[in-house]
């Protein structure tokens, strides 16, 4: 029998939930697709073929072609790159900001805590999508800018989470001991406190990726996200809307890709959260 280490318990619980495992596998597959896009896509994503525009799915073009005769399957495959990279970078930015502000707020308390918490309240009061749109209006809608803007508007959850974790850990004996030994604040926060509260942050990051993918696709769908000819699931859907009466395949397939991706990240995140929650651990483990 394996040792009852946290890692073992976590992994066994994670595997036990088949849906969670399925989510994890799909996420891995999506990574492979994104990584191998140049090798597995049947056409180049921006190969224009004016003789075959808006063709329904056929063996030659399994997901049909768009209004410029580009192969939709290839564009969906390449779109995976955009979606995943936006998801990761945006969430990375959000997590870094969230950890910084949350840790400072929880560890130092006092007026810094008041100011940061008030700032979070304010950020949460302005409808996020309004905020993102307003910022994007004034900058170039490049993929980097979109990542940054999504990251800058979605760190509040992580900050609150980290603050709560820090508050609960900073009075523990081992932290006080480190303090008594004269460890620097930065050291205490990162080496002693954060290391023990990474798990919930990680879960919320996985769920955050799902959210970022949705926001990016919504922006691209509205025409202010990733700009064509770069393929993104959202901007293919934008074409789908313009051709809604004649080309169903332009709407159905990229949306399905978004749905499956977001669903998988959500399943994975929820499964991880359950696996990490000791209250849900059964006796048999």
């Amino acid at each position, binding site marked *: 029998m394996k040792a009852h280490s946290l890692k073992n318990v976590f992994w066994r619980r994670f595997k036990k939930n088949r849906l969670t495992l399925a989510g994890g596998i799909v996420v891995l597959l999506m990574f492979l697709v994104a990584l191998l896009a140049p090798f597995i896509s049947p056409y180049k994503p921006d190969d224009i073929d004016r003789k075959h525009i808006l063709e329904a799915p056929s063996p030659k073009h399994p997901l049909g072609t768009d209004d410029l005769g580009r192969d939709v399957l290839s564009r969906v495959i390449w779109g995976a790159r955009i979606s995943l990279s936006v998801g990761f970078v945006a969430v990375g930015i959000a997590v870094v900001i969230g950890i910084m502000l949350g840790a400072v707020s929880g560890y130092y308390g006092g007026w810094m805590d008041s100011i940061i918490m*008030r*700032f979070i*309240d*304010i*950020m*949460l*009061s*302005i*409808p*996020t*999508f*309004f*905020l993102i*749109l*307003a*910022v*994007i*209006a*004034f*900058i170039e809608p490049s993929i980097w800018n979109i990542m940054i803007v999504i990251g800058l508007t979605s760190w509040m959850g992580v900050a609150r989470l980290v603050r709560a974790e820090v508050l609960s850990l900073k009075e523990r004996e081992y932290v006080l001991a480190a303090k008594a030994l004269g460890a620097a604040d930065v050291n205490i926060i990162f080496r002693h406190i954060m290391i023990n509260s990474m798990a919930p942050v990680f879960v919320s990051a996985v769920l955050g990726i*799902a959210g970022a993918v*949705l926001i990016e*696709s*919504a922006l691209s*769908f*509205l025409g*202010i996200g990733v700009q064509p000819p770069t393929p993104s699931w959202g901007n293919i*859907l934008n074409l*789908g*809307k313009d051709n*809604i*009466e004649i080309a*169903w395949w332009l*709407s*159905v397939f*990229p*949306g399905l890709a*978004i*749905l*499956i991706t*977001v*669903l998988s990240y*959500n*399943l994975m995140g929820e499964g991880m959260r359950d696996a990490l929650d000791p209250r849900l651990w059964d006796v048999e483990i």
Partner: protein
Amino acid sequence: MFAYLIKRLLEMIPTLFGITLISFLIIHLAPGKPTDILTELNPKITPEARERLEKMYNLDKPVIVQYGLWLKRIVKLNFGESFSTDRRPVMQKIWDKKQPLLDRRLFITLMINLITFAIILAISIPIGVSSATHQNSLYDKMMTTTVFIGFAMPSFWFALLLMMFFGVYLGWLPISGLKSLNYDALPLLGKIWDRISHLILPVFISAFGGLAGDSRFMRSSMLEVVRQDYVTVARAKGLPEKKVIYKHALRNALLPLITLIGLSVPGMIGGSVILESVFGIPGMGQLFFMSVMTRDYPMVMCILTIGGMLTLVGNLLADIGYMLADPRIRARQ
């Protein structure tokens, strides 16, 4: 109770202040002057006219003074004039007193969100409760699956699919706008049906995601509550199960849901941009999108501020709901 409300209202003031500050800064930290777009539209503008324009918007003063002056104006709900060609006051474009109530942009957005809200509450509570009382049944599992899909479903994609099916394929429902072109010629009943049929798809779409989340939340909250001692006591003293669930457990399980609803207000208001753009609904969200695209700064600042205020009002209502539902909060005063 009254004191608590006053306290909450006072707490809202700094947040409101912050909302206006952020709305202001976003526009003013952007490269270029806000009036650039206005003068670009009219290349013949003389330097004097440009200067006058900048004076009008106080752009010759330091940013902090500009903010103060802007704040002074918006306290009186005067958000200035739109940069678009019609040059109408911003507030008038959102809430045009000359138009019937049903055609005012802010009203349209509020109406759709409130109907959505009512539907979400009416459906998600019973679903959540019955999933919890039938935990792990086939019904519960089906609901859980639906919830996960509902969470992951991009609303604009779902909208496209339904538009294709009900609008294009079956031809049952209109797919754009709030009323038909021949609306004025319709008899009264026809008018009413015309309005309703235009709302069915948008309201359904905007309710779907919230429905998933709230019923899931209701389920876990109920599961938590039925494990409490007082529920066991209620059962032990022989109360019928229906009464235990709907009278003793439900009321307590509702408390976290009220908080969640308060938190979901900004998402719904923000979501109206997508919804109204997809369905071509002339509401505040659509206006915001158009203003962003044309860099109509006064309009953008105004809707940002109003969106924040609506969120605060939503939070306050949630607080009041919480107070009504939870006697402990009332007793604390």
